[in-house]
């Protein structure tokens, strides 16, 4: 299954990528393929660097080893202007929405158009209203970002991300912290945008059910490695204990409930001694 996806078909390929932050290895030699026109999800517990992966694909971070190819171009070999040209065709939806707080909803959606095109204002207006209509928030165009709910902000950000008709969109935790109705709206939106616009979508998420419902292919990442991959059905059936724990949400399993620590009983018994030592150490320094 791993290499059956040919690179001709994939829009984004990640090859043997390694990345660390400080001493912590975030990714250790991982390879992923993202097929054109499909929704590919990257799943894993919080803190596994899923957002970092999106930033690596977007060229905001540089890997230690390995390469990221988007539409045949090696992202980290590009010159600045080339990278910026590539980014115009990559939309990204940030977890917070990242709307510009000093502009209205309308101006936010118009922002990429005004920055990158020389279209007349009347045409920009038409485009903005079309994009807002697509996310169902045409009526909210005069609101300021601080007047929006979290779900609305994300939908506006989505309208902004598709303003330049990109070839792909990266979603960073699109479902986190949403009420069921907004969540449903977002799931529906991502799916319909993908089919109607023929976008390639990359979703980073730890919301198992919503993601499994729309993804065509899923990678499960843990501790910098890919621990499972396949279609949602294959993942559900996975024999890997780890994947099973993640998908079902069991409290204990291969991922322990407890953070690595010394033996509980030893720890309790030694606590009195240790704290005394700590006190003497501190006074010793003084």
């Amino acid at each position, binding site marked *: 299954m791993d290499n059956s996806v040919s690179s001709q078909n994939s829009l984004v390929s990640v090859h043997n990528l390694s990345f660390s932050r400080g001493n912590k290895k975030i990714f250790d030699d991982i390879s992923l393929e993202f097929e054109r026109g499909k929704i590919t999800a990257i799943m894993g517990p919080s803190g596994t660097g899923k957002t970092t992966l999106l*930033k690596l694909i*977007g060229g*905001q971070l540089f890997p230690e080893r390995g390469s990221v190819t988007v539409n045949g171009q090696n992202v980290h070999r590009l010159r600045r202007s080339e990278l*910026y*040209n590539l*980014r*115009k065709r*990559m*939309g*990204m939806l*940030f*977890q*917070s929405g*990242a*709307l*510009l*707080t000093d502009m209205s909803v309308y101006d936010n959606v118009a*922002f*990429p158009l005004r*920055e*990158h095109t020389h279209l007349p204002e009347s045409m920009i207006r038409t485009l903005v209203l079309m994009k807002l209509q697509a996310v169902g928030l045409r009526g909210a165009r005069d609101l300021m970002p601080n007047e929006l709910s979290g779900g609305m902000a994300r939908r506006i*950000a989505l309208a*902004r991300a598709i303003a330049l008709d990109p070839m792909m969109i990266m979603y960073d935790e699109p479902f986190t912290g949403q009420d069921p109705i907004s969540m449903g709206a977002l799931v529906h939106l991502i799916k319909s945008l993908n089919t109607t616009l023929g976008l390639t979508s990359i979703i980073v998420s730890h919301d198992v059910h919503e993601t499994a419902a729309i993804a065509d292919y899923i990678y499960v990442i843990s501790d910098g490695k890919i621990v499972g991959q396949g279609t949602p059905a294959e993942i559900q059936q996975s024999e890997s204990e780890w994947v099973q724990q993640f998908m079902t949400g069991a409290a204990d399993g291969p991922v322990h409930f407890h953070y690595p620590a010394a033996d509980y009983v030893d720890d309790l018994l030694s606590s009195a001694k240790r704290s005394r030592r700590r006190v003497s150490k501190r006074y010793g320094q003084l």
Partner: protein
Amino acid sequence: MIQFVQYLGRTTRTSFTKLGRGTFFLLHTLAGIGDVLPRPRLILNQMYSVGVLSFLIITISGLFVGMVLGLQGYYILSDFGAEETLGVMVAASLVRELGPVVSALLFAGRAGSALTAEIGLMKATEQLSGMEMMAVDPIKRIISPRFLAGLLSMPLLAALFSMIGIIGGFMVGVGLLGVDEGAYWSQMQDSLDFQDDIVNGVIKSLVFGFVATWIALFEGYDTIPTSEGVSRATTRTVVNSAFSILGLDFILTALMFGD
């Protein structure tokens, strides 16, 4: 002791690293100015938040500083029977020193801290990162216009400060204490030189505006993107700006007025 040396070494190193980052940031900002100039709207909007919002604090402070100078100057000068030179004293101290320095310090406190907080919050809420992903260079789009606005506003604010201060000194000296009106102005005009005093004062305020805006923007851009990081960066802006302004003032004064 060894710990202390280690601490010292580490601190020195991080400050140099920061200075290096700041310099690259500055170069990037300056490079962005070319892209901003065709869009005066961006600068105009920032002139509002940087200049107009500092207007009130500058004029009120200028008035009081001038009035105090008039009062103190009168008491000292009348001991020598030289009240006539009050205008010289008020104008020279304002135009050469207090105008550029005090208005720059107020500017750092009012506009500088606001800039740091604004940029820092934009970073914390991923707005800068989001802009980058929209293929918009945040330094060119966000930083450069603010930098230009600060650079342009500072000499105007300093000139206003000096003018209001001289009028304040006039109100106290001439209006309240009875110094001769003609002497106040004519002595001032005889003693102050356009090149030596006014132009040098404007150069000072340009330099202070450059440095204070640079520090404020860099601290915001370089902030740790948390609410605590932003608040720390804001404090650093005010402290570092004050140090830089006062230190530079000494150097500039030595260069300009030291014959």
